[in-house]
């Protein structure tokens, strides 16, 4: 769970309205805190030629089909997709607005980030779930539809060889509720885990520092 800062959105609005220079300084401090972890995460994106060759070559029929092909991996594009944002997001369904976040936005990068997170040995193949003589065709995305029944396992094995899955929020002792794998990944989550919470502290410190300065300047308590 992200750190919840009550009133931080109002503070940022007030800063923008009354102390624009302070607002800029706050943004700069937040960016300075987020930049190292973002760069570190970009460094976890492997080179294109180290991936399985079939995943990096563009398909010849891409232009002639009307469905979305499985996204290809390109290191440059994947690195570009790893970024941070300090502009407030739209509220999510629970009413929380994100003030600072790190994003892995490219499709190929996201696949590398999360592959094997749910099924460590790949999705079961159609044949293994229904039998090879079954007429039933499972069109859902729950089964491996490749002709190679070991495709998923091989794909994940290569990804694991290049970078291991790291859970940025492992289950704590005595923690209640269900565990989640939503914070597990090879790129941004790994970087966040290795950061040991320093970026969170730096962002919070930047916001609180700006609040202190705002109070000092305006006399508002």
């Amino acid at each position, binding site marked *: 769970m992200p750190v919840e800062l009550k009133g931080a959105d109002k503070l940022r609005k007030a800063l923008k309205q009354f102390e624009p220079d302070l607002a800029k300084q706050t943004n700069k401090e937040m960016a300075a805190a987020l930049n190292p972890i973002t760069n570190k995460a970009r460094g976890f994106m492997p080179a294109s030629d180290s991936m399985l060759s079939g995943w990096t070559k563009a398909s010849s029929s891409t232009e002639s089909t009307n469905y979305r092909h499985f996204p290809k991996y390109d290191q440059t594009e994947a690195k570009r997709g790893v970024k941070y944002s300090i502009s407030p997001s739209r509220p999510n369904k629970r009413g929380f607005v994100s003030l600072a976040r790190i994003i892995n936005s490219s499709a190929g990068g996201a696949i590398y980030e999360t592959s094997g997170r749910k099924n460590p040995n790949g999705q079961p193949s159609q044949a293994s779930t229904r039998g090879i003589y079954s007429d039933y065709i499972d069109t859902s995305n729950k089964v491996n539809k490749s002709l190679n029944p070991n495709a998923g396992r091989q794909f994940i094995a290569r990804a694991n060889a290049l970078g291991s899955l790291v859970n940025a929020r492992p289950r704590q002792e005595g923690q209640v509720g269900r565990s989640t794998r939503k914070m597990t990944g090879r790129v941004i989550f790994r970087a966040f885990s290795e950061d040991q919470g320093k970026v*969170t502290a730096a962002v919070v410190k930047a916001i609180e520092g700006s609040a*202190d300065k705002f109070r000092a300047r305006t006399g*508002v308590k």
Partner: protein
Amino acid sequence: MADLKIDIASVFSGKKAFNDAAKSTIGLNNQVKTLAKSYLGLFTAQQLGRRAFSAAKAFAADDKAARTLSKSLDNLGLAFADPSVRTFIADLEKQFGVLDDQLRPAFQRLLTTTGDVAKSQSLLKTALDLSAASGQDVVSVAGDLSKGYVGQTRALAKYGIGLTQAQLKAMSFEEVQTRINDLFGGQAQIAVNTYAGSFDKLTVASKNAQETIGKGLVDALSILGGGGQGGLDNIITKIDNAANAMSSFATNTAKAFKLLDTILNLQFTKIPGIFAKPKAKATITPAVAAELSKAAAEKAAAKRAKEQAALTKKNTAAIKEQTALQKAGTLFDVEQTQIIAALKGKITDEERKRLELQLAILTGNTSEASKLAGEIAKAQGLTSQLTAYLSDLPKASNPFSAWASYLDMIEAQARRIASITPKTAGEGSPVIPSYNGAAIDAITSSYGGGATSVRADAAGNVNVYVGGSVVSEGDLIDAISNGLLNRSLSGSPSAIGRLKGSFAG
């Protein structure tokens, strides 16, 4: 694809959305209320109009039915019975809660079939009973009865009167009517005494009231038309005339406006200056000037007051904004942070309330603070009450209190036993309990004379000597086996009764 992102810091903004939703709902509610009020007046007027029209219409229908029945009586040569029939129907209506709108057509059908007022009245009563029993309306039942009267009894079978078609055809109508009266007589009276019957009576009353009102309205219109038979015709003529007059008025008014417009155009275009504005003359006297200056001063004062009010409003808004900012600023206080951190820890309910109270006081949330203070005070009061209650509890009796005395007694007994010392040789011979010689003699005699002997030695030990030989179990078995074998060989075999479990040698 789910967003792959790590939220470093976030803020809860749900409250704003909830507030917006609440405001929108309240606004919508107010608008609907206003709309409802607006429509209420219009609706009331419309309803009054509709009610009046319905009343007049109901009266007209009732009047038509009554006139039709009267004409039927007249045609049958029974005009003399018209008043009695009216009374009869009015009485039935009141008695059974059935509208005359139904009774008249029913009676008319019976009357036209039978041609006899008394018979029709009798059959109408039967029809009412049958209607109450079967749930069919009285007009339909009267129709079926009138058919039955002329021999078409097929329709009567559906009322379940327990007669086959053949029986119905074979019986006369009087017999059938008697059968119906036997089966269903009094049903109408019972039905009218139920709640549904009471409701029907109320319906009859309201319908009659409606007809009365309708009659009043028609009479009123008739009076407006001059009264008498031709009153209503007169008012209709007058309404027609009024409509024509209004139409003519509208047409002529339009023509007049058109003419006036033409005239004005001519005046402005061809005779300029005729309607020119006269020049103002200097007629301001000192009194008028004083009044004018007074009015100007009042106007200026009003303007200043308005400006002052606007300034006050602006200041209030600024103060409000400042307060809001102060409130936002306080969210970052160290004390608050500590309290929030403490609230996230494992604490008791009372501690949580105390922390929340501190937080409410720090943030200036007076309503929450007073509420929490009340709860804490209540909790404290409850604690003190509990302490007082526990202190006032009577001392419970200890079930083990008596054990101490018992243990003391046991201890004393143990001490006494331990203190007993046997007498030594110097103190005299020890007391050895003597044996009961008679008992031992009895035992020895039971074994046969000479079998045992009992002696006591000098130390007082009793020795019992048993005569004969003592053998082991194996020797005994061998001896018995040999004995049995010898007996068998000597011609006296042993017999074992398996069923009886006996053994005979």
